[in-house]
């Protein structure tokens, strides 16, 4: 396989979407495991076909658009999240010879896509013309715009160490030592910001079923909802892959396994970690989340950047 | 050597700053220590500087601290200059000033603004020291104005009484007239001679100006204007009697050590300019003579103990001007010094009288107080004798020198001498009138009061008594300063002349005795005629100078202002305003308040500009 060929693109897209779909089952099973209950186990062996059943259900459901909604934005919103997350995968280097593009602005591209992704949630909520949806999207807007800032700054330590925005270069720069060691603080901040960006539990404040009744996608059903749903799982995969690439040496690992398997393994660990987070931690209040970000994470990430810069200059 | 010169003005300044910045929070004892102590230290510094200077035998010493400003060729510095004249002045200022401060610590003890009083006093001394130590006229002018400011502050010290504020304002405004003249003089000197460093300027003047040339006359006249204002000479003398509104130690300070002597000092300092303009110098003499006669008459008519002394000061400064005018520079400075001693003594004595008698100023309500107020009586007796030039007191020697110098002058010398002698006669009359009325005869009230004189008040009085008695034997080291200008001709002066000068004041004392003590001649009989009454009124009001100025300047100015109350010039500007308004109303129409309209006009302007840019 060669970077950027049509076959690679197709394979990557298919794998990613497949993994995202499989996550529906994985998450529910793991949650069941951790919460000492069963989870889906009826359809097929170990309930594996639950994914297929869900897909059939979601495709055949009535794709209903509320008459009071702004149709243009309403349809556009779920498409945006799918598009930007899938586009983000374009710059991820899965293995030495697997990837779509090598861009010298890789990280910036991912950040740009993440910032565009915010529109999906906002437009979805706004166009629904529903107070819960509006509340959800207001929360989402503030949360995503805020955490984008810390996400970007936490990455700058890695960028400074590797001297490049190119993700493949960054992986190469970790041959001696994974960046998680010198950039542990950056890693933690990125982890938190990543959860917030993909508004997964415990930071699913824009959705928050108990308070605002699923937030921005209250009015969505059928495949449009499915796109939000899959988009969220895609985001999860993306954040895990990014953590792997940026802090854990990407595809690198002992030679007894091929590089792409190492990549998948590392990413899988983080995916499971995120699911564990969901199982273990309660949701904070909205204002707690915001003050935590601006008053704690922002100074911390700036300090991290400052110290990193100073150390690099000293050497 | 002599590096501690800068300490002299700095110490009082530090005293001033520490008192001002603590804003009256210090206890009175601390204020007294700071206020009087800073001057005392300055006096010690002055003494050591003087001794070192005299021992070194040099003609002059300059200490440059820093350049004040530098504009083109004009760069006056903060530089101090010391020669014989300065030594005399600074010793008088710090010495007499210290005695007055010491006296004040007792005199002002009951005043709520104790700290403010001493801060002003310290600033006053600092400014005066700057004035006499300055080596250039700009720094001198700084001290000059500082002195003016302090006199304003001190005369209006009891500012709650509007009259005191008025007196302070009057002093400030009247001296301002003189200051303006002096500033003009400075401009002229700089424009003509290119420097304001006093010594350089004097040399340049000598080199460039002919004797009697127009420039020299103009410069000398302008400087004289400044001196006349500060020293309260005709025609700017009217502020001084009103300046009695301040506390008595201030009067002592203004009259004896600072302020009024500044004019004398200025003329002595720039004497070369005056020598180049003999006509102006003669004018100085005439001003002095007329002033001393006029104020002598006025003093005879006053009732207020301090006003009598005030007019006597004007008169004595008149003597100094007379001395300056006839070229007896060192005699004038000598008289300045002795006058400082006995006038400080008289004022402080008057202060004791006033304080003891609960702020009684009218001499005709006292009487027979010599037992009741022994220290004050002694002060007045010795001070009065010195003032009337009683033989072998300090005033005798200095006045003698001036009058002899006047006599020696060719031309008007005899008249000047005669006038001076008549003035001395008057001095005898009014001085002892004061003493006889206050301390002899029958008591006319205030019988119960005890004399208020602690050691800090009596001490300075005794020192000043001693100085007034023997001050005439001090020889002042100013010969070098005036060496080239002094007329040292040893005239043969007949014993007759000496006799006249000794006897005339004694006659005055005798007449005073006959009128006011023994009662053999009655003042009421003298006052019976209408002419005498109107003369008395005339003199009492100080020759009607205040009225004259009121009629000459104030009223015409007010009338003019009233005439122009519609303000003709303003009307012209009003036209301009209405034109602008009209144009404004026209342009205002374009301000519609619609943002779109503004954006449109900007775009339109851009289009026009682009068109012009492309086509042109």
């Amino acid at each position: 396989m060669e970077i950027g060929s049509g076959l690679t693109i197709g394979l990557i897209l298919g794998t990613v979407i497949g993994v995202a779909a499989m996550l529906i089952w994985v998450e529910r099973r793991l949650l069941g495991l951790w919460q000492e209950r069963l989870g889906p186990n009826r359809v097929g062996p170990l309930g594996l076909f639950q994914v297929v059943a869900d897909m059939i259900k979601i495709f055949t459901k009535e794709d209903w658009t509320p008459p009071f909604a702004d149709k243009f934005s309403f349809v556009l919103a779920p498409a945006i999240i799918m598009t930007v997350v899938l586009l983000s995968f374009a710059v991820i280097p899965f293995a030495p010879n697997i990837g779509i593009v090598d861009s010298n602005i890789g990280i910036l591209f991912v950040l740009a896509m993440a910032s565009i992704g915010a529109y999906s949630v906002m437009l979805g909520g706004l166009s629904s013309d529903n107070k819960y949806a509006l509340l959800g999207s207001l929360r989402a807007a503030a949360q995503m715009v805020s955490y984008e800032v810390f996400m970007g700054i936490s990455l700058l330590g890695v960028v400074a160490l590797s001297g490049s925005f190119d993700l493949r270069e960054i992986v190469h720069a970790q041959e001696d030592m994974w960046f998680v060691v010198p950039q542990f603080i950056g890693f933690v901040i990125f982890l938190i910001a990543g959860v917030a960006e993909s508004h997964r539990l415990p930071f699913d404040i824009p959705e928050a079923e108990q308070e605002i009744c699923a937030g921005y996608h209250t009015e969505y059903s059928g495949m449009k909802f499915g796109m939000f749903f899959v988009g969220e799982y895609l985001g999860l995969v993306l954040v895990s892959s990014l953590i792997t690439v940026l802090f854990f040496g990407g595809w690198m690992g002992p030679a007894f396994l091929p590089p792409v398997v190492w990549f998948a393994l590392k990413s899988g660990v983080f995916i499971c970690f995120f699911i564990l987070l969901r199982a273990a931690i309660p949701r904070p209040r909205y204002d707690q989340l915001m003050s935590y970000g601006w008053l704690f994470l922002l100074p911390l990430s700036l300090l991290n950047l400052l110290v990193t810069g100073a150390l690099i200059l000293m050497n | 050597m002599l590096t501690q010169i800068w300490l002299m003005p700095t110490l009082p300044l530090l005293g001033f700053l520490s008192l001002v910045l603590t804003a009256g929070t210090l206890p009175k004892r601390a204020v007294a220590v700071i206020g009087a102590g800073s001057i005392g230290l300055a006096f010690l510094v002055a003494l050591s500087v003087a001794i070192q200077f005299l021992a070194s035998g040099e003609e002059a010493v300059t200490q440059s601290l820093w350049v004040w400003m530098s504009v083109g060729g004009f760069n006056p510095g903060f530089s101090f200059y010391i020669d014989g004249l300065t030594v005399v002045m600074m010793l008088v200022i710090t010495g007499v000033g210290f005695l007055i401060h010491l006296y004040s610590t007792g005199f002002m003890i009951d005043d709520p603004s104790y700290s403010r009083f001493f801060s002003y006093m310290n600033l006053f001394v600092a400014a005066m020291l700057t004035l006499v130590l300055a080596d250039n006229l700009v720094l001198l002018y700084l001290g000059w104005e500082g002195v003016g400011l302090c006199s304003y502050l001190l005369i209006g010290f009891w500012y709650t009484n509007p009259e005191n504020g008025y007196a302070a304002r009057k002093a400030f405004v009247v001296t301002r007239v003189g200051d303006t003249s002096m500033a003009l003089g400075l401009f002229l000197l700089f424009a003509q001679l290119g420097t304001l460093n006093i010594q350089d300027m004097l040399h340049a003047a000598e080199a460039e100006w002919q004797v009697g040339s127009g420039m020299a006359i103009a410069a000398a006249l302008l400087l004289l204007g400044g001196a006349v204002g500060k020293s309260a000479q005709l025609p700017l003398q009217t502020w001084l009697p009103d300046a009695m509104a301040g506390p008595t130690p201030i009067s002592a300070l203004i009259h004896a050590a600072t302020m009024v002597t500044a004019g004398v000092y200025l003329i002595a300092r720039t004497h070369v300019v005056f020598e180049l303009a003999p006509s102006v110098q003669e004018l100085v003499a005439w001003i002095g003579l007329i002033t001393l006669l006029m104020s002598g008459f006025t003093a005879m008519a006053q009732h207020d103990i301090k006003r009598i002394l005030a007019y006597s000061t004007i008169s004595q400064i008149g003597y100094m001007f007379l001395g300056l005018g006839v070229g007896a520079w060192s005699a004038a400075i000598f008289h300045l010094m002795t006058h400082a001693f006995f006038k400080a003594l008289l004022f402080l004595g008057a202060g004791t009288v006033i304080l003891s008698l609960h702020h009684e100023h009218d001499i005709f309500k006292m009487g027979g107080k010599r037992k009741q107020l022994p220290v004050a009586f002694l002060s007045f007796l010795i001070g009065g004798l010195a003032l009337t030039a009683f033989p072998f007191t300090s005033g005798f020697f200095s006045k003698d020198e001036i009058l002899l110098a006047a006599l020696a002058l060719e031309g008007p010398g005899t008249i000047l001498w005669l006038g001076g002698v008549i003035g001395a006669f008057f001095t005898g009359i009014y001085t002892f009138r004061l003493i006889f009325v206050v301390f002899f005869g029958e008591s006319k009230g205030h019988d119960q009061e005890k004399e208020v004189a602690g050691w800090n008040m009596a001490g300075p009085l005794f020192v000043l008594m001693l100085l007034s008695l023997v001050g005439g034997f001090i020889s002042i080291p100013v010969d070098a300063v005036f060496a080239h200008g002094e007329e040292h001709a040893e005239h043969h002066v007949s014993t007759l002349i000496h006799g006249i000068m000794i006897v005339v004041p004694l006659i005055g004392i005798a007449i005073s005795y006959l009128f006011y003590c023994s009662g053999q001649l009655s003042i009421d009989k003298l006052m019976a005629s209408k002419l005498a009454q109107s003369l008395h009124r005339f003199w009492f009001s100080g020759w009607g100078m205040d009225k004259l100025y009121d009629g000459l300047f104030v009223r015409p100015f007010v009338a003019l202002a009233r005439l122009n109350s519609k303000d003709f010039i303003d009307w012209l500007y009003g036209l301009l305003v209405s034109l602008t308004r009209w144009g404004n109303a026209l342009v205002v129409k374009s301000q519609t308040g619609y943002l779109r309209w503004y954006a449109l006009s900007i775009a339109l302007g851009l289009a026009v500009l682009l068109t012009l840019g492309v086509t042109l």
Partner: protein
Amino acid sequence: MQGIPYEHGLILASILFAIGLVGVLTRRNIVFLLMSLEIMLNACGLAFIVASARWEQADGQVMFLMILTLAAAEVAVGLGLIIQLYRRYHTVDIDRLSEMKG
């Protein structure tokens, strides 16, 4: 690679600028107004980038960054003003705010 005539970039910038200008001149909604202003600012930034590419110097991009910063600050303040105005007048009609005249 075929070259791009660099005036084409400037022409694009001019067109965007003109469109933004029309927006500013026509719209009454103050939010639209601000958006049109952003279009104009962005067009200026484009012109700078074109110049930067033409001369192969990074200065143009620096200027673009400055414009970006300016736009961010401007929008923050502008939107704050809009919120305040809406609270006070309950309208987004810029023509209602024409008291500052004459």
